[in-house]
């Protein structure tokens, strides 16, 4: 028993379908060989093991990035005051916290790394690496990804990239500190050093690893969806989650390479003294910079945002996919407007490549090019709204079950609505003049990513936990986690819109205290910080629930406890190596709930037509 992977070792096997799984294992015992521990759990090629590796690693990084933010919020609430956690201040040392008071350079390091870690080491690996890897092969009825060994490499390359990023805190001068956006000339010269072991250079190196990992992963996802769909699983019978992952795959595949090119060029600027991004005539610290010049700082911005705009859709699309799955299942009816969802997500993916310079409205571009990007940005809001509307309309007439996954999925809707709507003035060039680089922007994108994407990912964790582990997470703790997070997130991010409209710039290490126009809105900083620290407490509830449930959660009595229609529920629990006892054949669409005349209120995709 228990030959089949990490999942058995960490999670207790559930009782219900053990007879089926037992037969499978006995069958396999005859053919298979016992793999050594390090091949089964460390260097595994099984997409489920890799998915869990991505999941656990990314959750650790999310937690770490969260801690960085909590430190920042002390400085913002109590600027210039010593941190009241003595051992932490002394561990951080005098270079970072002289006398316990945060140095501005350290604040900048925290800011740059918080953004980098949350996006590239946290959310995307969780949404795409974890959920994508675990679920896509299952939902298309395949035994694994198209390229299992490549899948394993992409995890380990991600891991190395993450280690490089973390180590960058410990080199002289500290980590990258020119924003997660690393704009030159500042990023080129901070500090001026050819050494590999400076924070910014390690950031660039880490990014090269992370981009490589993403590329390899996206090749796998796209090929799996196109080539390994089960018999009968036509394009328009794919779960919306799979469509979202397919489009996300293309975004990662085609948008990341220009940033890789830019990263190589910035590495050349820093280590080989080139001037890709350095114009002629730069003076630093009173001295003329001894470089050839002739470069363009805006070139970096174009190449960076060419990726970073599609990147934000990488952040949201898997989340929309998860919300779609959870809503269909917990309303017991098909998603409203499946076709419009599919066409919108494809159109959204395409448009995302031609809106990037709305991040550059204030760089001195002319009115024509500004008008172009403003127009494409306004157009791209349409498919977003179509998707949100379709998800909301899917609730109408539904038999709604308010379990924990559904609570998170429901809250996603208005939270993403706020995030999306606050994006509109930013996308209008004239309004952006006032709002660019203010806290309004920070409020906007955090609404989309925190009570937006993260809520959807939480929904996904609570929803698919029983399939991966054979146990349910605790419902009461889940509800505490949900309500606490919802309230606290709004407490942190809503006042940011007010601060931003008052003109408070982002990346100010004193939170705006030295600016006259900020004085009236500084009062919010304390409340926002208390909300952030309270949010941490509610995440502890989640962490306890997660690990406790793995070992002692209520065991499920069925392979399909949520009574869902999609293929991942048609496996033993947890799914063994190879996933399905018998390769499934698909007979219908993904959301055949409450079909009139059917015996039960759901018809699994792989169930043959009833006689």
């Amino acid at each position: 028993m228990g030959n089949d992977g990490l999942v058995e070792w960490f999670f207790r096997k559930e009782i219900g379908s053990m007879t089926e799984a037992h037969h499978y294992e006995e069958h396999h015992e005859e053919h298979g060989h016992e793999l050594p521990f390090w091949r089964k759990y460390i260097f595994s090629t099984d997409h489920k093991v890799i998915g869990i590796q991505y999941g656990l690693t990314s959750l650790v990084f999310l937690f770490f990035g969260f801690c960085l933010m909590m430190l920042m919020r002390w400085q913002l609430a109590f600027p210039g005051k010593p941190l009241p956690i003595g051992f932490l201040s002394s561990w951080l040392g005098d270079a970072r916290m002289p006398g316990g008071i945060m140095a501005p350079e350290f604040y900048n390091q925290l800011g740059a790394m918080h953004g980098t870690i949350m996006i590239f080491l946290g959310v995307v690996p969780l949404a795409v690496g974890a959920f994508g890897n675990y679920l896509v092969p299952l939902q298309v009825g395949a035994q694994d990804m198209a390229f299992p060994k490549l899948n394993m490499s992409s995890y380990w390359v991600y891991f190395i990239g993450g280690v490089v990023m973390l180590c960058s805190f410990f080199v002289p001068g500290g980590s990258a500190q020119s924003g997660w956006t690393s704009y030159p000339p500042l990023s080129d010269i901070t500090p001026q050093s050819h050494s590999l072991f400076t924070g910014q250079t390690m950031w660039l190196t880490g990014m090269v690893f992370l981009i490589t990992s993403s590329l390899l992963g996206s090749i796998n996802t796209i090929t799996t969806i196109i080539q390994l769909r089960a018999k009968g699983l036509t394009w328009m019978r794919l779960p919306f989650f799979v469509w979202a992952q397919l489009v996300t795959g293309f975004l990662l595949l085609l948008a990341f390479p220009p940033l890789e090119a830019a990263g190589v060029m910035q590495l050349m600027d820093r280590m080989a003294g080139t001037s890709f991004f350095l114009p002629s005539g730069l003076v630093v610290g009173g001295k003329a910079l001894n470089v050839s010049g002739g470069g363009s700082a805006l070139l970096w911005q174009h190449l960076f945002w060419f990726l970073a705009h599609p990147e934000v859709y990488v952040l949201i699309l898997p989340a929309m996919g998860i919300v779609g799955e959870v809503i269909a299942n917990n309303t017991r009816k098909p998603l409203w407007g499946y076709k419009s969802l599919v066409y919108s997500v494809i159109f959204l993916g395409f448009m995302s490549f031609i809106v990037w310079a709305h991040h550059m409205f204030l760089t001195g571009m002319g009115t024509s090019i500004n008008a172009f990007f403003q127009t494409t940005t306004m157009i791209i809001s349409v498919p977003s709204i179509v998707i949100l509307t379709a998800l909301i309309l899917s609730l109408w007439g539904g038999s709604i079950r308010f379990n924990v996954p559904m609570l998170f999925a429901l809250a996603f809707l208005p939270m993403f609505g706020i995030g999306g709507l606050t994006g509109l003035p930013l996308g209008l060039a004239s309004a952006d003049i006032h709002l660019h680089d203010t806290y309004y922007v920070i409020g906007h994108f955090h609404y989309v990513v925190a009570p937006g994407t993260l809520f959807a990912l939480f929904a996904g964790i609570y929803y698919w936990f029983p399939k991966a582990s054979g146990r349910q997470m605790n419902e009461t703790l889940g509800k505490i986690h949900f309500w606490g997070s919802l309230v606290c997130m709004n407490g942190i991010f809503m006042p940011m819109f007010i601060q931003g409209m008052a003109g408070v710039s982002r990346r100010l290490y004193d939170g705006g205290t030295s600016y006259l126009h900020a004085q009236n809105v500084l009062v919010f900083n304390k409340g926002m910080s208390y909300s952030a620290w309270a949010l941490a407490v509610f995440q502890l509830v989640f962490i306890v629930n997660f690990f406790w449930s793995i070992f002692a959660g209520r065991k499920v009595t069925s392979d399909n406890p949520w009574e869902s229609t999609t293929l991942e529920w048609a496996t033993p629990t947890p799914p063994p190596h190879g996933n399905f006892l018998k390769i499934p054949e698909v007979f219908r669409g993904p959301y055949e709930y409450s079909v009139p005349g059917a015996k039960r209120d759901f018809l699994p995709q792989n169930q043959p037509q009833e006689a």
Partner: protein
Amino acid sequence: MSGAIEIPYNSTERPDTGLYNAKLGVWLFLASEVMLFGALFSTYVLLRTGSETWEHGAEFLNVPLATINTLVLIISSVTMVMSWASLKMNNFGKYKLYMGLTILCGVGFLVIKSFEYAHKFETGLFPSTSTFMALYFTMTGLHGLHVIGGMIVNSYLWGPGSKMWKTDPQRFTNRIEVAGLYWHFVDLVWIFLFPTLYLLPGK
């Protein structure tokens, strides 16, 4: 449980797409490479048009050597496709010959490149000298890394990897086709790099 799973369409094509998995995979990879080199070429265009003056590469870069290198890569592309064709015609011996020649051509390319680089450094031309030189070293350097990568793959397929011809000849042939696609792409990039850096007039 390695080997217990059989991923379909590694050797044969999936009927509705007409592709085997690795072929789709490598074309997706090449699409991303087009974006990568496309960004670098865009950088060339932007920095050049934004500049008052621009070097005429032929005045100080070694055009004859680079021309030879271009021919070397073109020859290697032919030998690469011939190595695949040999397998299609069931001739493993010819495959080894042609793949071996491909690898040798790659070595030749890199040797010539290293002579070029060394000479540049000796005459005081470094990436930091100008944006033209920065582009020269970065673009040819990144291309060179891709050549090295291709040679590692080709060497594996010539050596230990060629065992698969005995156990799954169709899948092995597919691997050579896929490696060939990558190698041709590397040749294709050089076909554009060579005139851009070495031949285009300055301003």
